[in-house]
Every structure is written in structure tokens, then in C-alpha cells.
């Protein structure tokens, strides 16, 4: 863990509010990005991710609060530095490529703005394109590029900026797995070399968890949770956060005792001891999160198999139990027929706060569809 001092922060957002006509799109948010770190902003559409990025990039002045970059205050309600003086690079959602410029000139643009002459700027731009394996497209204009190629040009332009903070506005939304891998690797290399940070807005949980060092969950402009991918996955603060961060089965049961990272849950009249904790053990049933890997097929509990789906490396089994439906993920193809009674074992739970979150309780199959905006971004 790097030292958590403001001087080490590439970005510091302090109590930031951005309001449009009295409605706060970003509502008193505090967060920071450390040197060499990628922070993912995870939230559904309209949660304020993009507005937060605009305020950091300098496209929107804050209504209240401050934005600090590299230990320097760049925006407060009275004064906002323009984007070109902020040392940030942006990858736009729909690329925002200039239709009148070739790929080479597009990537050379930020280099030229740094003061380079035309020729060296173009040479450097060609190197960046080459690193993204699109040097052969240097003379093409956006209209002559495919969607994936356009995106790589957009990324190349951001990389050529050599900024200390990279802002991504859901940039991978249209990309296939292979290309995404190529440029994420590229990004990791650059980030480690220059000590830059990244702020990565997305609504895809799998992407956020797989990419970022830390994840910030945003809902209706408010920061709901901030933590490592492991934390937000295993210990979401509420039902809404649980549904957002991955496949989640929310069941109800009483947690009667808890001690030293283990606790006792009442299932089918039995006390089952599993990994987990509870704030206040008692006899009342409370909502509990069960991730797909936290239960297994086989064991002393029984349930009825409601659905089974083959997913390649593993299969998802939806099991109806006395505490509710539980999604169980097992390697290999489905082993039981739908409708059969199946044995199962609960190995871990996470108690959730009862909150009325938008979208309601996230069901196991539903939650996957919800966390994926587009049909083409298949999970790896």
C-alpha cells in the first residue's frame, strides 16, 4: 500500500458537488486516486460517474467542493482551471475523433500542443499507434476506421498526452475481449512507468473489479462504497451494492451467533456454521448475501434445482432453498436435471443492511444481465 498522504495523490476530490439547475448530479463526493493506481467508478447510468469525470477534466465547474491534481488545487466554486492546463487525458465514450483529421494527426495533436514541431510530433504519434498495433491506419480518417480502430485511435490520443491522470468514460463498452486485453496491458505498462493514475468510469462490474486497484460505487450522485475490488465484492454495504458488484443471491435467514470470522446460520432448522459475520446476532431473519462461489452442490442441505445453465468453464445452478433462491457455480457441465432435489452446502455469507435500493433486490440471473450494458461484452 502506498503512503496515503495527499501529496502522493494524483487526484483529490474534496466534498465535490456538481448541480444542474438545483439537482445534484454529484453529491458531496470525496475520493482520491493514488500514484500508480486505477480507481474505478462503478455505477449505473445516471449515477453521476460522467459528471464527476467532467468536473475532474475541467468541463464543468464544481458547485461546491474542490478538485486537486498532483497536490495542486485546480477547481473550486470560484475558479476552475481549463482542461488544457490540468494534465489530464480523456478517453471519450464515443471516441470524439475529429472527422477532418487522420489518425496520425489526431494522435500528434496533443504532442504538438506540448510544443513539439510537426515532424517529431508525427514520429512520436506513429510510435504510439504502433504500440496499439494500428500504425498501418495512420493515414485514415475516422470515417474510414472500424469502431474498434476508432477506439484505439482515441486511446492513442490520450496516451500521447502523457498526462498524470487518465480519465476513461466507459471506453471499453464497444470492444471485444481480445482488443480490450491488448490496450489494458498497454495501459498498465504506461501507468507503472510514469506513476500516473487512472479514473475509470464503467457500469460493468466485472470490468471494474478486474481492472481497478480500488472501486468506488456511485448511486444517484452519492458515494456508496469505496474499497478494493475484493472488499466491494465480498462485503458490499447494502443490497444495492451487492447487486451492482456481481452475481448476488440475497436470502433471508437468522444469524444466531458470530465469533472470529465465523457465524451460525439457521437453515432448514439446522444451525450451520459458515464463514461470515453479523453485527447483532439474533433470532430474526436478516438479508444475507451469498455469492455463487459461497455455496456448493453436495452436502447435508437440500433444495430444488430451478434452472441450470452451462457457461463454458462452469455451470450456474439456481437452487430453490428454504431461505430463498441461491445461485451456485460449479465447474463443468450441469450435473442434475432441472426439477430434481439437489443436496447443497453453504460455506459463506455476508449480512446486508436492509435498504430500499433502486432496482430492488438483485436476483441471481437478473443481476448479471443488469450489470452488463451491452450484449457484446461477454465476461471472460
Amino acid at each position: 500500500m502506498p503512503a496515503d498522504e495527499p501529496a502522493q495523490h494524483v487526484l483529490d476530490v474534496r466534498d465535490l458537488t456538481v448541480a444542474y439547475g438545483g439537482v445534484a448530479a454529484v453529491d458531496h463526493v470525496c475520493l482520491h486516486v493514488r500514484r500508480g493506481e486505477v480507481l474505478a467508478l462503478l455505477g449505473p447510468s445516471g449515477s453521476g460517474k460522467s459528471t464527476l469525470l467532467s468536473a475532474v477534466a475541467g468541463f464543468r465547474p464544481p458547485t461546491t467542493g474542490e478538485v486537486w491534481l498532483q497536490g495542486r488545487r485546480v477547481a473550486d466554486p470560484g475558479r476552475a482551471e481549463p482542461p488544457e492546463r490540468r494534465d489530464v487525458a480523456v478517453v471519450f465514450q464515443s471516441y470524439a475523433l475529429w472527422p477532418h483529421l487522420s489518425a496520425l494527426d489526431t494522435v500528434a495533436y496533443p504532442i504538438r500542443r506540448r510544443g513539439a514541431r510537426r515532424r517529431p510530433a508525427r514520429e512520436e504519434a506513429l510510435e504510439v499507434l504502433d504500440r496499439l498495433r494500428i500504425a498501418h491506419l495512420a493515414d485514415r480518417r475516422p470515417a474510414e476506421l472500424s469502431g474498434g480502430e476508432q477506439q484505439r485511435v482515441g486511446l492513442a490520443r490520450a496516451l500521447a498526452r502523457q498526462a498524470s491522470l487518465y480519465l476513461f468514460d466507459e471506453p471499453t463498452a464497444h470492444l471485444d475481449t481480445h482488443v480490450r486485453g491488448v490496450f489494458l496491458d498497454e495501459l498498465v505498462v504506461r501507468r507503472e512507468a510514469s506513476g500516473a493514475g487512472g479514473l475509470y468510469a464503467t457500469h460493468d462490474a466485472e470490468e471494474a473489479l478486474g481492472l481497478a486497484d480500488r472501486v468506488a460505487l456511485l448511486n444517484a450522485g452519492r458515494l456508496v462504497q469505496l474499497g478494493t475490488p475484493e472488499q466491494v465484492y465480498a462485503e458490499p454495504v447494502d443490497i444495492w451494492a451487492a447487486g451492482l458488484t456481481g452475481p448476488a443471491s440475497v436470502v433471508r435467514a437468522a444469524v444466531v451467533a458470530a465469533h472470529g470470522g465465523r457465524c451460525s446460520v439457521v437453515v432448514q432448522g439446522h444451525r450451520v456454521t459458515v464463514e461470515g459475520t453479523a453485527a447483532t446476532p439474533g433470532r430474526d431473519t436478516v438479508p444475507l448475501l451469498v455469492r455463487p462461489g459461497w455455496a456448493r452442490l453436495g452436502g447435508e442441505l437440500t433444495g430444488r434445482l430451478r434452472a441450470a445453465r452451462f457457461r463454458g468453464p462452469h455451470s450456474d445452478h439456481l437452487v430453490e432453498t428454504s431461505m430463498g433462491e441461491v445461485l451456485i457455480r460449479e465447474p463443468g457441465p450441469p450435473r442434475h436435471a432441472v426439477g430434481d432435489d439437489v443436496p447443497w452446502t453453504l460455506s459463506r455469507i455476508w449480512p446486508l443492511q436492509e435498504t430500499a435500493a433502486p432496482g430492488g433486490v438483485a436476483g441471481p440471473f437478473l443481476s448479471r444481465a443488469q450489470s452488463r450494458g451491452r450484449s457484446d461484452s461477454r465476461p471472460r
Partner: protein
Amino acid sequence: MQARSTDLGRRAAVLAVGTVIFLLVVLPVFRLGYVVWTEGSTQLDEVLGRPGLGEAVLNTVLLAVAVTVTAVPLGTLVALGLRRADVPGRGWWRFAMLLPVLVPQFVLGYSWTQAYGRAGFTDTILGLVWPSVLGPWGVWAVLVVNTVPLTYLFVAVGLATRAEPNLERAARASGGDPASVLRHVTLPLLRPSIAAASVLSFVLTMESFAIPQVMGTPAGFTTVTTTIYRDLSLGSDPLSFVEALTLALLLVALTVLVVIPADLWLGPRLRVTRVANPEGAPIVTPRGAAGRWIAAGLGGYLLLGGVLPLVALVTAAITPAVGVSPSPGNWTLDNFRFVVNARNAEALGRSALLAFAAAGLLTVLGGAVAVLERRRAGRVMASLVTVTLVLPGSTLAVALLITYGRWIGGTLTLILLAYLAKLWAFAHRPISGALDRLAAGEMQAARASGAKALTAVRTVALRPLAPALLGAWLICFVTALHEVTMSSLLYGPDSDTLAVVVLNSKELGRIGATAALSVLLTLVMLLPALPLWVLIRRLQSPRHPRAGGARSLAHAR
């Protein structure tokens, strides 16, 4: 099979529009040329070698260049200022900028002399006279004032439809300061709109008549159009007539020299196919001193260019006679009573209907040329329809009369044809400037979803093009309603239009009545213009204010 039928459809469209162009533009101009050739070929040397003609031609070209190089940058500046800076009262300014367009041209020149000439408004009140208001400088100034709203409109439409704010944001985030972004991103994106505005400004100045006549002729400043007018006024003999036609064709030749290279060579190079979806709320720099300066500049421009002349006009309208002090005790509505009567109202109604019909047809015709000029076969069409715009109203009217008068002389149809021929380029250029807002994929998606070609146009293309189409419609409507020369030459029994009303009030030598009529016309113009403007404003706002905007960086709510 499908491909072949589309190809066939395309060819049919080219053929159809080509036929209309032939009938409305080529044939009439050819008839003029034929008259000049058969009746005047022997005197051609004499006509072209006439003393003063060279000067008139030089004046015309210099004026056109001077007006264009002033009005286009000014219009661009205003459009950028109003779109990209937080000017106090932006919405209001955007509307106010168009007010000078609503004032009929024959009124504008006159009202300037009333405002700034000797014994004019400023002279009476402040003792300020601008002696050169009559002469080339005055003509230039008024033409610029008259042209700026048009160039502003073109560039503003271009800004709204072509320069998506995210493209500028991307440049800022790449380290470009505002000046660099303007130079490398915004202006290149606006090039087609600026080019369209320049061509129109150039051509409109060449054909402008009312202002050079009112403000230039008294000071001995002649242009080709005023020379044509003189030829027609002075001589009922065939030679003068042929002289006038020859000069008109000379204007056509000058236009062709400028416009055809611009369209054929420059046009395709200026256009770029765009890929990005329009998104992002407009960039608005925070309110600051700049915004107030812009507001002050605009205020000054409107005050000097529009408000003062109009106040002078209103003053003249409510004063019983020239030279009577315009104090409240002397105010009268007699001039209005004189102008408002059943016959005039009928003529005005006829004009409005005619303008309405012409504007609708012109929007379709202009759109057709804008679409077809993207193909090699259609490129020359754009230049051709510009040819009739430059023909002075009187000669174009004569050309149509000679060509079709035998069959439809004296009917409203002939006047309508004249409007279509005259204003085609007016409708075409703004639409053309905005057409590449339409990404090819959008139309294909509509076709793939089961829409026929026309359904695809109606459901997918019309919406994003709506600001440009409505803008074109508005310009055509206003211009057709103001039109006086052609209809006063072509009207017949029961087809008298506004032109006759204007003529009546002018001929009586009653300045007050002319002023009253002008005031009324300007007010009448506001009736359709205001709601239409509001509609255009609404259409220009982002397309998917909630769903689409929420995901984009620039536009989150």
C-alpha cells in the same frame, strides 16, 4: 436486385431534379442568351465597351468581396460568441440577431439614410452626421449589416449540427487552448458552413439592388444591377432592353466563374464524413468579462444596425409629414389607416400564401439538390441553381416571362416559378451545409429495420436535419414575402401581391405611408417567425436529453 432498384431510383431522382433545374434555370437563362444573341450580337461590342460599365463591374465585384470578407467573419464570430460563451441573455440575443433579416431590404437602406443621413435621426438629436452614408461605404456597411444575420445563421446551424461539443472537449483535454481548438477543430469542422455562407454572401451582394440604388446611386456609385435598372427605366427601345439583358448575363458569367470552381473543386474537399454520434451539452465557458464584452458588442451592433434605423422608421410612420417634429403631440395613425385596407390585406394574404408555398417547395427542392450533389452526376446542380439567384429580379422575371409567359403569363404560377428559380440556392445551401450530420449508418439501420427509402428519410433523416430545413424554410419564406421586383413585373389581373401595395405607398411619395407599411410588414413577419424560431431552438437542443446524455462524460445529469 435491391441494389439495382436503388440505383434506378437514384437515377430517376437525378433525372427529375435535373429536369426541374433545366426548366427553371437553364432554359430561361438560355432564352436570355438567345435574345441577346439574335437581337444584340451586332451591338455587343458597343454594350460591353460602354464607358462606366467597367467601373460598375469592378464596383460590383469589389463590393461583393468586401461584404463577404466582412460579413462572414463577423457572422462566425457572433455564432461562436453566442454558442460558446456564457453571454447574459443568450437566448434573446440569438433571436435578436435575426431581426435585421425580418426587415425588408427596400426598407433597410431607406431607414439607414433616415437614421444617419443629413437631417436624419442622429443629426436631429445629437447633431451627428455620417456624410458617407451615401456612397460605397454606406452601401458596404448596410449590406454587411444585412448579410451578417444570414452568415450567422449558417454558421450557427453548422455549429449545432457539425461541431459536437465533445470534439472540442477532446481537443481541450489534449492540451489545446481555446485559440488552438478554434483553429484546429472548430473552424475546420465549420468549413462547409462557412463556405456556403461565403458563396451566398458573395452572390447576394452581386445581385443586391435596393441598397446600392438607394444609397449608392445618389453618390454616383454604380453597380451592375443599378445599371440594369437604369437601362430598363430609361429606354423602351429594344437596344436598352438588350443592354440590360447583356449585363444580367455578365453577372451570371461572373457568378459562374466564382461559384462553379467553388462547388466543383472546393465542395467535396470541405466535406468530411462524420462518425461520432452527436452528443454532449454545448461547451459554455463560465460567465466572465468576455461574455459581457460580447453582449456589449452585440448590443452596439444591433443598436446601430437595427434599432436606430427602425426607430427612425417608426418615427417616420407616426409623423404626419416629413419635417414635422416627431413630438408626441404630432403623432398620428393616419399613415397606418392609409395602408390598412381590404385590398391591401387581400394582396398581402396572396403574398403570404405564395411565400408559404414557395418556401415549402423550395425546402424540398433544396434538400434534393443537397442530397444529389454528393454524387458526381449531381455536383454541377448546386452551381446551376446559384445562377438564377444572381440574376437581378427584373431580368429573371423577364427570362421566365419570355420562356413561359405565352402559357401562364399573369398567373400566380409564374410568380411561384420565379420564386423557386430565384431562391433555390437560398434553400439549398443551408441544408447542404448540415447534411453530413447524417451518418450513413443511421439511414442503413432504418432500411435494415424494414423502412422503405422515403420512410427512412422521414423517420430518421428529417429529425436531425430539422433545424437546417426549418432555417431554410424560414429564410425562403421571409425573402419570398419581401420580394417586390419579380412579382411587380409578373403579376396579372387578380394575382396582385404585396409588391403592388408597396408600389402604391411608394409612388404617392408619402414617406410616412411607406414607413407605416414597412413597420406593419416587419410585425407581420414576426408572427410566423417567432414560433418557428422557438421550434428551431427546441430541435437544436440535444437529441436525447435523458437517456443518451446520462452516459456521456459531457452531458451527465
